[in-house]
């Protein structure tokens, strides 16, 4: 589990994983900005490990996003790059149609929980798997 980095704007992910795992916490980033950071990291040679649109909660609903990438850098991950680019285009499309609302704290907390749970169940299931 030391070979992955979690890129997130979700404080719950930072809280629960921050000590055990490498978490790149972007507290100020929007959903789209989080995707952009990941896109840039893929250009820098990291591999995309989880699908950016995980959750099926649409990008203009949830403000939170956690994406797992490899810690190691290698050759450019073309498939990953294609997926993140398409995901960004998709997210932009939704946000252009309707901006993510200013949710109440309760709803935000729920969205953080959903995002955290999706990523934690995924991570718990990958223990020891080859991700290279």
């Amino acid at each position: 589990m030391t070979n992955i980095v979690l890129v997130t704007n979700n404080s719950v992910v930072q809280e629960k994983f921050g000590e055990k795992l490498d978490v790149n916490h972007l507290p100020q980033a929007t959903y789209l900005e989080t995707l952009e950071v990941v896109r840039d990291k893929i250009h820098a040679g990291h591999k995309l490990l989880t699908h950016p649109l995980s959750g099926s909660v649409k990008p203009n609903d949830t403000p939170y996003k956690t994406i797992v990438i490899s810690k190691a850098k290698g050759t450019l991950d073309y498939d990953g790059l294609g997926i993140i680019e398409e995901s960004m285009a998709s997210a932009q499309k939704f946000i252009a149609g309707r901006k993510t609302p200013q949710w109440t704290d309760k709803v935000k907390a729920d969205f953080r929980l959903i995002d955290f749970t999706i990523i934690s169940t995924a991570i718990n299931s990958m223990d020891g798997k080859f991700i290279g």
Partner: protein
Amino acid sequence: MVKEVERAGIPVVHLATVVPISLTIGANRIVPGIGIPYPLGDPTLGEVKSKKIRRSIVEQALTALQTEVDGQTVFEM
């Protein structure tokens, strides 16, 4: 654009940082660039190395132009 150039009868090689996009837009000869902030070269390695990388990418591009292809082909570095 790449397709229109090819349609006009001029062989074209696409030096692209986002190869999937290059594939989508229909380039036939593709050479991957280094990355979006610096497609041809890597300035973080210093100017000399960076230029060397640029030269090798362009050389690869010329090789691609002089290679027969049946369809979309990525010429990895």
